[in-house]
């Protein structure tokens, strides 16, 4: 009927209109470029970031950086620009207060805001950071720090020793405890001098003070802000907090009053993008300039014009662990058999397409006192594995093991391959899986009902103690890290001695022994070391600032 032609035309018109709108809005006009920064006017990635762009997509952009009274002299510093660097992070930015949030991703962000007392130099020695004049170890348990005078927080207040005391003591007993738990108290000796007294001799303690989590906060700012402190964090660092669009990004801008070298980029925006495909897409479209890539996305950017791929070592590894409390793994032959049955090189290639390295020691090679470079990778010999199994008294299919893995992609793939390998030598494997929290709560917390597991570990500081203590000292058995449930007095003693000593040689010897014990007895069979693959625009000089600790010095990054 003729009247329906009208309705139908109306419908078709609407559809076409909608499509046209989409098409038209895709056309870039001059006015678009001036709008929100998410409309990056550089579809050809590689073009310089426009200086006219608004750094913060959030509506409440904080006031511009403090009016510089001396801009002329600042510009003469080496290479300072007005550009914005957009960085993608693999996980949520959970918080900006180190006391509550210690994860690596949040740490990368607030690492630009706060400054810790110590840092590493080019030779990997621990030295004073830019806010410390000098420091020395007075006795076994006392460290004296002289602070630089005149260091200003972002709110203009001066940093005093009381702030140091405040920042360190507040972390005791919290998520930061692994860094400051040894502190008995901090003694303020003057405005710019303090003593840090720890409970007992600890050679690993100073390494903890290089961590971004021990950055110095302003006591006054925290007290004033109360629970809302995180929404406006104050530090002494090279970047100031501008805004935090929950669930999207955190924006920082250059601290023009910074006491040290001014960072190159004017603004840093950290985006939280948990999905790897989305990250790669965002990089390709130019919405972010630097992004960590999943192994499968690396090839997209390796040869793409305008992009570079930078690979960096990390402190992380995947390993196969054995439950010390399980009866079935008590026999060394069984553990040996399991280790021989697994081809770690093949797994590394399969899981990561070559973007990881085969592991040797239980400590990642970049961690101090790791013997990774002197150790051979796990030997693969299926025949020998079967023979050992038979010697241990198990025939084909007699041994049944419970394997715990969680649902993270890499752990699952390694776990599945492990099961295959074990099946091939005649071991039956039952897999228990669930999300990490559930597995921790159900299995690791009690140390029962499982025989072997696949785990990942990321060493929290460059010092071996932070990994060894938490994974093998009997006091840590449980869901916090000691999934092995090892309970050996000799091992505990070695770990404690190594931690207490300040003598590098003594410590090296002890850690060597600890690693060899664990490796030879196969309580951990390291599989692979994680290698971070970063995709970035060609102009960004990314490689120098990447650190295996996982905390990258974004304030030092420059353009090429």
């Amino acid at each position: 009927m003729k009247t329906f032609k009208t309705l139908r035309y109306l419908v078709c018109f609407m559809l076409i209109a909608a499509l046209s709108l989409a098409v038209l809005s895709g056309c870039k006009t001059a006015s678009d470029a001036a709008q929100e920064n998410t409309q990056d006017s550089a579809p050809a990635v590689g073009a310089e970031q426009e200086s006219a762009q608004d750094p913060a997509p959030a509506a409440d952009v904080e006031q511009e950086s403090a009016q510089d009274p001396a801009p002329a002299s600042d510009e003469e510093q080496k290479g300072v620009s007005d550009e914005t660097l957009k960085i993608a992070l693999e996980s949520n930015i959970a918080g900006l207060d180190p006391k509550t949030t210690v994860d690596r991703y949040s740490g990368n962000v607030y690492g630009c805001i706060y400054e810790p007392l110590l840092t590493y130099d080019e030779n990997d020695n621990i030295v004073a950071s830019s806010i410390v004049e000098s420091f020395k170890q007075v006795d076994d348990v006392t460290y004296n720090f002289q602070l630089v005078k005149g260091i200003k927080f972002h709110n203009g207040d001066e940093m005093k020793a009381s702030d140091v005391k405040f920042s360190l003591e507040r972390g005791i007993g919290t998520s930061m405890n692994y860094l400051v738990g040894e502190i008995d108290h901090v003694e303020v000796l003057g405005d710019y001098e303090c003593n840090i007294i720890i409970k007992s001799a600890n050679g690993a303690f100073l390494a903890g003070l290089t961590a971004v989590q021990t950055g110095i906060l302003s006591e006054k700012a925290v007290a004033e802000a109360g629970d809302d402190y995180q929404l406006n964090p104050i530090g002494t660092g090279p970047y100031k907090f501008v805004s935090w669009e929950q669930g999207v990004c955190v924006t920082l801008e250059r601290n023009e009053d910074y006491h040290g070298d001014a960072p190159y980029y004017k603004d840093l925006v950290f985006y939280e993008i948990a999905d790897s495909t989305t990250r790669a897409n965002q990089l390709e479209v130019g919405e972010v300039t630097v992004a960590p890539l999943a192994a499968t996305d690396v090839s997209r950017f390796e040869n793409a014009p305008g992009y570079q791929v930078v690979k960096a070592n990390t402190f992380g590894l995947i390993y196969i662990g054995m439950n010390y409390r399980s009866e079935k793994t008590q026999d060394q032959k069984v553990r040996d058999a399991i280790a021989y049955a697994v081809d770690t090189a093949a797994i590394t290639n399969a899981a990561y397409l070559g973007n990881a390295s085969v592991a040797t020691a239980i400590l990642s090679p970049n961690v101090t006192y790791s013997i990774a470079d002197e150790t051979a990778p796990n030997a693969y010999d299926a025949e020998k594995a079967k023979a050992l199994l038979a010697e241990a008294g198990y025939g084909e299919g007699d041994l049944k093991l419970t394997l715990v893995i969680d649902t993270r992609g890499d752990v699952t793939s390694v776990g599945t391959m492990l099961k295959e390998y074990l099946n091939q030598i005649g071991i039956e494997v039952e897999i228990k899986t669930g999300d990490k929290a559930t597995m921790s709560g159900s299995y690791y917390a009690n140390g029962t009902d499982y025989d072997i597991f696949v785990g990942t570990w990321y060493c929290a500081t460059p010092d071996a103690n932070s990994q060894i203590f938490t994974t093998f000292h009997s006091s840590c058995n449980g869901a916090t890290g000691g999934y092995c449930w090892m309970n050996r007095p000799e091992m505990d003693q070695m770990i404690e001695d190594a931690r207490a000593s300040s003598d590098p040689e003594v410590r090296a010897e002890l850690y060597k022994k600890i690693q060899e014990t664990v490796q030879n007895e196969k309580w951990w069979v390291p599989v692979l070391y994680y290698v971070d693959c970063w995709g970035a625009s060609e102009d960004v000089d990314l490689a120098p600032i990447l650190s295996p600790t996982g905390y990258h010095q974004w304030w030092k990054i420059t353009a090429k």
Partner: protein
Amino acid sequence: MIRYIIRRVLFLIPTLLLVSFLVFAIIQAAPGDPAQLALGEGATAEAVETKRQELGLDQPFLIQYLNWLGNVIFRFDFGNSYRSNISVAYQIQNYFPNTLKLSGMAVLLGVLIGVPIGIAAAVKQYSVFDNIVMSFAMIGMSMPAFVLALVMLLLFSVTLRWLPPSGFSTFRQMILPVVALGMQPMAICARMTRSSMLEVIRQDYIRTIRAKGQTELRVIVGHAFKNAVMPILTTVGLQFGALIGGAFVTETIFLIPGFGRLLVTAVTNRDYPLVLGGVVCVAMTVALTNLLIDIAYAFVDPRIRAEFKGAGGGVFPWQKLKKLVLAMTPEK
């Protein structure tokens, strides 16, 4: 009518209590220690214990629940996230409006396009147009939103560079996620409208109106549609309720800070206050949506209006359903 509304709003309270209690019970029962999860790997046993006490997790289940409830009712305080210590209310304030906007616009798109298409298909039943429309509707209903989202993203954003791939503040940013999420509501609305209209068009009174000499347009849109609109309203309400729960994958793909992401992360981290706050928020929204739809019924259908104005009851869903059914069946 006002009394009815007040009664329904009051009924929200026991609903929310029940929902929050159930959710609290379930998430407490799930394995995983929130204190340990909040502190992360490498925390010492004492630190975990201290945290547990700090969070009140060492207290009996009922006390914990009542504490939470007390804070909510008397101080309007939903507590702080275990993981980040940021107030739950603040996070809800930041995340929830985005989901509201996304879901609202998706459903609106579904209605704006689906309903006219459905009407046209019903009027032109069995025609080519009808068949095409119904095929598309079938595809739209069966295709998961995230597949469509990814395809659209790859096509319009990465390849053609027409639209931005993420964010949710400008209009252009909203196009892709709203369209991706709106496909299903569109398809369902189209089908629902079509079937409802078909039923109504066959009724005798439509013939009467035609016999009056009324224009076909007025017959269909003015009379037939008004009678057909109730099932469509129901569908719209249900669609909105479903989407409010959080379109997790769509939000992840388009980097929209929405409730789906927030709640999934919260559950993974066993972040009790955040989960509870979020669930209460969703439950309230769904309940209010249903209430609005019910009130809308009364505006559309005078028979239902009469029921509302009449004697009490009709508060509980089964009573309401019974009344609705009785009202709809023709008397003989």
